[in-house]
Structures are given as structure tokens and as C-alpha cells.
């Protein structure tokens, strides 16, 4: 009994036991992640072989430069100056001395090596977490030597995905309308290039006017509009094979053909009798279906990534605004209510946002809003800019911007620009000629 009483009192004796303290961290810095891209090491024999084939002195350095440039232009990474590197590429690839990389404040490190194996290019690369002193990823690619630029883009995508948690967008292409000549007599050609502006190629000769090329989200197919004997025609072009076919001649004016997410349909608008409606065409059986029927101008349709909804712009309210409807044309809802005119809505591949062009008080804006019209954000403002197109990961927009002509009618130019969703990372994409109407492809290496 006495024992029990003592035990009871012992239990009552207080003990200093604290609950674990919890601290909430809801903010961080927005600085790009500092990382080091060590040149890919290459042995002398391989270097000489590639020099002969590709006319590049050191293909390892060239590939690492592509990776570095891609990551830098994303605005999310800060590649450190190579002059600060303390470890040689060949040794770093074997076993990085993390203290050295830590010293230059690198949080991630990319190393690798290039080999010439059986007439092919073999690239190995490793992504290291410098602070944790561990490997995050290691991959190897083998391809024909001419694909060396793509290898750089693929490495960039893999690193981007591992460090940001979303797919990259570097191994992609951009199709656009190349423009040359005076403003009143422009020669317009279809052109394609890598997303970083390299490998530019012209796909048409410029005899006919071409407009609004759009990539199929599911493949490397393009649809565009071209005038043949002053009649608009919708074409399909396979980028890989170069084959081209006419989808059809349509009554009156045809605008802005665009693929459905599965690539089986084309959605576009026809203008007839002073009004314009939205139609779809099944590419297998060529059946055309009318989606909207309103005595107003409905144009620029774009599917949601799941294909269930369509966004378009219409002046049915008296002013051009953005609307969303179901894919059968029912349940039409206006989503833009701000001041000014809204146009060219494009649904993000992520599905969460709609990009648009806005005209307000003589200025053009590229902006985004949620699919219900809330959270409108204007990313960039200029004299004239339009036609946003999303990167396949839904983080960057490409569009074109025109400059004013001076009093003599000179000084006009049209260039491609990109901006990310933060609105801070705005960059011009260099093209050999003036450029307009860009469209971003899906990832080539899916």
C-alpha cells in the first residue's frame, strides 16, 4: 500500500518536458539557384574525331555551353562563371570535391564526359547536390554526332525537371512567320528553329502569304493558313517528313486554325455574312461542325488541355472579351471583365491559366488569368504585341512585338519575345529576319 502511495506521489512530481517547438517558414528568397556547369570532359582522340566531323574544337564545352545558356534563360538558375571553378572537368566528373564547389556558392553541379564510340556521340552527365555531397541524377545518351545540340537541350530538360519539379521546355522548336521587305509589301515565309534560336530553317518560299502556324500538341505536325489565288486554305505540314496537305477550302474568311489536344480535330473560325462563328473539323472524316451560332464575331478558339472546354474571344457583349464554353458550344460564360479589349486567348498546357492580349488606352499587354477570369495579371506592356503561345510546361510565353515606324515610315520591325509567368524574365529570341505569329512545339524527346 505504502509503495503505491509513494509511486502515486512520484508521478505527481513535475518533469520539465517541453513540446517540440514549430516554426513556420512561409517566405523565401526569389534568387535564381546558383549552379555550376562544368565543361564536359573529352579525351584527345574523341576530341579530334568530333573536330573533323562537326568542325567544333571542343564539343564537350559546346554542349555544356548550351546547357548553361538554357538554364540561364529560364530565369530560375544562375550558372556560375567558369573562371571561378577550382576543379578540372575530368576530375570533377569522377568525383567532385564538394568543398571547392561549395566555396564558390554552387548549390548544384553538372559534370559529364563525351566519347566517340562507333561513329556515334556518347554523352554521360551527372547532376550533383553540392550541399548534401551526393549525386542526384546520372544519365547517358548515344546519338549521331549531328544531334549534339539536342543532347545539350535534353540534358537541360533533365536538370530542369530534377531541380524544379516540372518538365523542361528546352528540347523544343518554335515555328513562326518570317517577314522581310517594306511594311506594305511583306514577304512572309514559314520558318522553324530550336527554342534558343539555333537551326533556323525556312519551310515555304514566300510566294504565298502564310499566317498563324500552330503546332499539334501531340506530334510534330503544324497547321497554318495560306492564301492560294486569294482564297484562304488550311494546310497540314509534317515537320519530320516535310509532307504537306490541304485540309480544305472554306467559305469566306478563315482564321486561326488550331489543333485539339489529341490532334484529331482542328478548331477555327469562318467569317460569313458579316459574322464569324467557330467550327471544328475532324481530320479523319473531314466533317465540319458548327460550335457557336451568334450574330457577333467569335474568333481565336483554343481548347483546354483535357479537350472539354474551349476559350475564344467575342464581341457579343459590345466589346471584344474572352469567353469559355463547353466543347459542344454550350454553357458559354464571359470571363474577362476588365477595362479594354481582350483577344487571342490561349489555354495553358497546365490547364490553370489562359493567356491573352489586351488593348487598353492605346497600349498592348500580354497577360494571364485563371480559367474563371479571376487573378488577371498583365505580364508585359508595349506599343504593339500579340499572339502569345505557351511553352509545353506552361511556364513561359512567346509572342511577337512590333516597333513604331518613324515619320519617314522607317524603323518598323517585328521580333519574337518570351516572358515567364513571373513577368520579370523577358527576353528577345533572335531570328535572322523579322518574325511574327510564333507557336511553341511540345517536347521532342517525350
Amino acid at each position: 500500500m505504502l509503495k503505491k502511495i509513494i509511486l502515486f506521489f512520484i508521478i505527481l512530481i513535475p518533469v520539465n518536458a517541453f513540446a517540440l517547438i514549430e516554426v513556420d517558414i512561409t517566405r523565401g528568397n526569389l534568387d535564381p539557384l546558383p549552379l555550376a556547369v562544368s565543361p564536359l570532359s573529352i579525351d584527345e582522340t574523341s576530341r579530334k574525331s568530333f573536330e573533323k566531323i562537326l568542325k567544333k574544337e571542343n564539343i564537350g564545352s559546346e554542349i555544356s555551353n548550351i546547357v548553361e545558356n538554357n538554364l540561364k534563360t529560364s530565369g530560375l538558375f544562375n550558372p556560375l562563371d567558369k573562371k571561378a571553378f577550382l576543379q578540372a572537368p575530368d576530375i570533377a566528373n569522377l568525383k567532385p570535391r564538394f568543398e571547392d564547389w561549395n566555396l564558390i556558392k554552387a548549390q548544384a553541379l553538372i559534370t559529364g564526359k563525351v566519347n566517340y564510340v562507333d561513329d556515334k556521340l556518347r554523352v554521360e552527365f551527372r547532376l550533383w547536390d553540392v550541399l548534401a555531397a551526393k549525386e542526384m541524377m546520372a544519365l547517358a545518351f548515344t546519338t549521331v554526332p549531328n544531334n549534339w545540340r539536342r543532347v545539350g537541350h535534353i540534358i537541360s530538360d533533365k536538370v530542369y525537371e530534377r531541380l524544379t519539379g516540372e518538365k523542361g521546355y528546352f528540347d523544343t522548336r518554335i515555328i513562326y512567320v518570317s517577314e522581310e521587305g517594306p511594311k506594305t509589301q511583306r514577304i512572309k515565309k514559314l520558318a522553324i528553329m530550336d527554342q534558343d534560336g539555333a537551326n533556323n530553317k525556312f519551310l515555304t518560299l514566300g510566294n504565298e502569304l502564310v499566317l498563324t502556324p500552330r503546332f499539334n500538341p501531340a506530334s510534330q505536325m503544324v497547321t497554318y493558313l495560306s492564301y492560294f489565288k486569294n482564297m484562304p486554305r488550311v494546310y497540314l505540314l509534317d515537320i519530320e517528313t516535310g509532307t504537306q496537305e490541304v485540309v480544305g477550302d472554306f467559305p469566306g474568311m478563315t482564321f486561326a486554325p488550331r489543333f485539339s489536344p489529341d490532334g484529331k480535330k482542328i478548331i477555327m473560325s469562318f467569317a460569313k455574312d458579316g459574322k464569324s462563328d467557330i467550327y471544328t473539323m475532324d481530320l479523319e472524316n473531314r466533317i465540319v461542325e458548327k460550335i457557336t451560332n451568334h450574330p457577333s464575331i467569335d474568333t481565336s478558339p483554343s481548347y483546354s488541355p483535357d479537350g472539354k472546354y474551349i476559350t475564344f474571344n467575342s464581341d457579343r457583349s459590345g466589346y471584344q472579351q474572352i469567353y469559355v464554353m463547353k466543347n459542344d458550344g454550350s454553357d458559354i460564360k464571359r470571363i474577362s471583365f476588365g477595362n479594354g479589349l481582350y483577344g487571342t486567348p490561349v489555354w495553358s498546357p497546365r490547364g490553370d491559366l489562359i493567356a491573352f492580349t489586351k488593348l487598353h488606352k492605346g497600349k498592348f499587354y500580354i497577360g494571364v488569368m485563371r480559367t474563371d477570369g479571376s487573378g488577371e495579371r498583365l505580364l508585359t506592356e508595349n506599343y504593339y504585341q500579340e499572339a502569345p503561345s505557351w511553352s509545353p510546361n506552361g511556364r513561359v510565353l512567346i509572342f511577337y512585338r512590333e516597333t513604331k515606324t518613324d515619320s519617314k515610315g522607317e524603323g518598323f520591325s517585328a521580333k519574337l519575345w518570351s516572358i515567364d509567368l513571373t513577368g520579370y524574365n523577358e527576353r528577345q529570341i533572335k531570328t535572322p529576319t523579322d518574325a511574327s505569329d510564333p507557336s511553341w512545339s511540345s517536347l521532342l524527346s517525350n
Partner: protein
Amino acid sequence: MNRSLIISSALHALLIFITAMSLPFLAKKPLDVPPVVSVELIQIAEKTNIPFAPKAKKIIEKVKEKEKKLVSEQAPPKKVEKTKTKTVISPDQNNKKVENQTPEAIPLPEKTVKKVETKEEKKQNPDKLDEEVKQVSEFEKDDLFDPNELKAKIDKAKIDSSKQKLKKNNEITQDQDKSVLTGKLTITEEQALQAQIFTCWSIPLGLPYAPEDMLVRIKLSLKPDGSIDDMEMLDHVKMNTPGKERFRTLADSVRRAVQICNPLRVPASGYERWKNIIFNFDASEMLGG
């Protein structure tokens, strides 16, 4: 009857004893207390104020001024230099010394750094004041008329001040008292920790917003100096779950943030409270939820 009375009295006495043990003031004893730097300096000045030694008075006034500076700066440059020269043997300092020493006797760079660090830490430590007093006493020893008397007084002052310091160290302010007893951080302490982490955490801006993957919890075991002894990702299973790559990316950024911030600048007192701490990294606000 007598037996029952004895048992009852004994039990009552035991009850009173345990109740006394349970009182909260007894729980305060083992707790760390923040150093009170300024108090001792003032007292030293009072104790060394000698009316019949005009030269000493002047010197003490000088010392007083010096002490005032020390209170604000907490790190007298002269003092640091002195300790450095004592502990660090640099190659430039004396070539002969280096030559005479056996290789084993040459301090390793790491050790040297450690020594310097420990001296620097003392800047924040009240123990340093004792050395400061010693400095003053040495200084006065050369110039005062009656060095022995002065030394005795200063020694006494030293003892008194250290006693008082100990006493004060055992006392805690009302605020700290409250936080220590509740086991929580004060708002200031919490904000100080948050401010450190904010600067170290590079949020992966490309990360798409997914409400269920925006919170990463990490538990840190800290040493008294704020350095990380151990870290544990509380959702580590989720990190390695296929399809949760976004969460893994966020968790990686959290781990990097904690490593960059290591060692943390921790509260001066109450180690028991914060030796284990959980940080909840919530990116939803930053990634536009």
C-alpha cells in the same frame, strides 16, 4: 490512536514536501539564462573609484569610458587582437619559431580556426568580463601610487561582480520566464529564426502549385551553438513516392536552405526548449496558391 496520528502526520509531511517540489520556481533552476553584459562593468567602475589617488581616478574614468564603448560594441578590437596573438601562430609571425618547432607542434589550420572561433564566441559571453577586469587591473598596476591596495580592491570587485553575475544569471526576466516555462519561443526569437531561414531558402519558382505538396516539415536537432546535429525530413516517405517528384524538389530546396543556414543563430538561453525544433516550410503563399 498515536500510530494513526503518526502515519497521518508523516503523510501530510510527505504531501507538503511534494507540493513544495512541484512549485514552478524550483523548475527554473537548471535553465540557461541569458548573459547580462552591462551590469558588471558599471559595478567595477564603482568599486575602483578611489578618492585619494587623482591619477588613478583619471585612469578609472578612462576605463569607464572604455567600458561604455564596450557595452555598446561588446567586442573590443584590442582585446580580440590580443587573444588572437596569444592563440594563433601564423607563419609570418616568427619564422624562427616555426623552424624550431617539430612538425607536430605546428598548429593545423583547422585547429587554429577553432581557437579563433572560441575566442570570438567569448565576445558574447559574460565570462569575458573577468578578463576585462584583469586587463584593467594590469593597466592600473603600472600607474597607481598604491598598487597593492588597488589590486586588492579590484580583486574584491572581481569576486563581488562575479558573485553578482552568477546571481543575476540565475534570475530570468518575466518574458523569458514565461517562454521558458511554456517551452515556446518568444515572438522575437521566432522572428529571428524565420528571418535567417528566409534568406537561405531559394524557393523553386518553377514548381507548379499543388496544395497537397506545398508543405515540407523538417525536424532539426541542434547543438547549443546552433549548429545542426541531425536533421530528419518528417515526410521522407512521400519524398520517395513515385508521382511526388514536385514534393521531392521542394524538400530538396528545404534541405539546402537548412544546410546553408547552418549554424543557426539561436536564442542565447533555453537550450532545452529549442534543441529539437520543427520547421514547417510552406511554399503555397510564394507559389501563388
